[in-house]
């Protein structure tokens, strides 16, 4: 059997992503702990994150509506597998809770971390509230996680 040689090449690459106007306004809002959705004039659906058009109606989105930083847990899990944390670039060790939260005032759900990591204390239908970081940079992870409102 011939020797199996591999060639290691490290990718150390960065991209300068453009947010677009809607996401820029959304990000500015987060810096003041303000969450806004874009409501479609056709179907009335209030979208998080904001985006240029409603994919169902093909209409431009321009009507901003306020959204609360609390809402209903529509889906949840507790992750035990370590995972890459996009903000820090480090590995986020488990267990940590995650949920799809329908914030009051939005029609789409927000996928975010939960402070709760015990599956027996989590259920669809619970309410949860955002816990903001002290230092805000205008990104959805300015919210550290959501805490279940007991």
């Amino acid at each position, binding site marked *: 059997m011939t020797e199996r040689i591999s060639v290691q090449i490290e990718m150390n690459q960065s991209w300068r992503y453009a947010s677009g106007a809607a996401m820029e306004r959304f990000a500015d809002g987060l810096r003041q702990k303000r969450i806004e959705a874009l409501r479609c004039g056709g179907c009335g659906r209030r979208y*998080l994150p904001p985006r240029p058009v409603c994919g*169902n109606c093909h209409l431009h989105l321009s009507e901003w509506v306020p959204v609360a930083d609390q809402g209903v847990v*529509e889906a949840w*899990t507790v*992750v*035990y*597998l370590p995972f890459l944390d996009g903000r820090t670039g480090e590995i986020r060790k488990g267990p940590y809770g995650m949920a*799809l939260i329908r914030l009051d005032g939005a029609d789409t759900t*927000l996928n975010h971390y939960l402070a709760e990591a015990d599956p027996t204390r989590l259920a669809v239908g619970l309410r949860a509230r955002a816990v903001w970081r002290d230092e805000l940079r205008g990104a959805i*992870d300015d919210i550290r996680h959501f805490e279940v409102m007991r």
Partner: protein
Amino acid sequence: MRPAAIIGTGQTDHAKSRDDVSQPELVREAASRALADAGLRPSEVDAIIIGNMEMFEGRALPELWVGEGGFANRKPCLKIATGGTSGTSSCIAGFHQAASGVFDIVLVVGFEKHSEGQTQTGMALTDPFWDRGVASGALGNFALSISQYMAERGVTPEQAARVAVKSRRNAAKNPHAHLKDANATVADVLASKVLAHPVRLMDMCPQSDGAAAIVVASAERAKKLCSRPAWVKAATTRHEQPYIGDIDRRLLSMRTLRDASRSVYATAGIREPLKQLDVAEIYEPVTYAELAWYEILGFCSEGQAGRLIEDGVTEIGGELPVNPSGGVLCANPVGATGVIRVAEAASQILGRAGAHQIEGAKTALVTGYGVYAWADAMILGSEP
């Protein structure tokens, strides 16, 4: 769509790591097996389509380097990449090309070598303003949707474990499968460690190195070259809005897979899938998804998926065998996974599925799944 047919398939033996071959050699392995199965020389191929999710291997325009493995030197060759549906979408592109009158023989090769990158490579490069900030990858995203599905449809971990058991046992009859265990039990699955509640290790698909290929022929070449081609009776694709939060009750609604399957059923004259389909190769990245797809695909009414698996309806020998190959749960080289589904279904129609052949299979359903809710669906049949 004008008729076209699959006249040959080929797969590598999918594994955790194939560091014995380079990416072009892995592609060549599947491509030459498919051509041999079709009884064709490479020179008879008119066009090549490559399916691959190149960021998993940190590549750009991978067909430039690996195309030669697929006999693409000095031939028309292009690459398709649509997440998990890359394989099924590549096959559908192959059907369109073979039915267009421009090409008579189209070789479609899907491949992936996850061992050459890092498991979280793909997930690290999601939308930087949204998904990347709060990420748990495909696993976490599925676990979230599964909690909704369980809460509303009452599916149990034991029923999900039965899907894993069916998959591992079927895979024991499939030389190409990456994971296999003829004696897998529900207890084994329930004992495997929880990755993300309620998904356990054996509930989740692996990351594999592997390649799969099919040879698609125009109608008249198919009739000349193959005694019992696998005809493409219908094939379509539905994509979805970009964010997981856009898709309400994902595993319960899955409008993309529902609409794609209804469309191909209508075209192929399928009114009762459970009775009219002889076999299905569906794209199930996690056990709970296979149960959800039973309901979305109309194999049973809502809330009945658990009973379907418990009654053995979807076992080899059941009324509608699902994933006799072992499915995605037993082999998942992403760019090839969809092509494996098509190759396995075609092999059933061609009568070449070997140990996991479903006797007299004439009508097969194939589905593809990718990103949050992209879906492909197709019907293959023994008659044009």
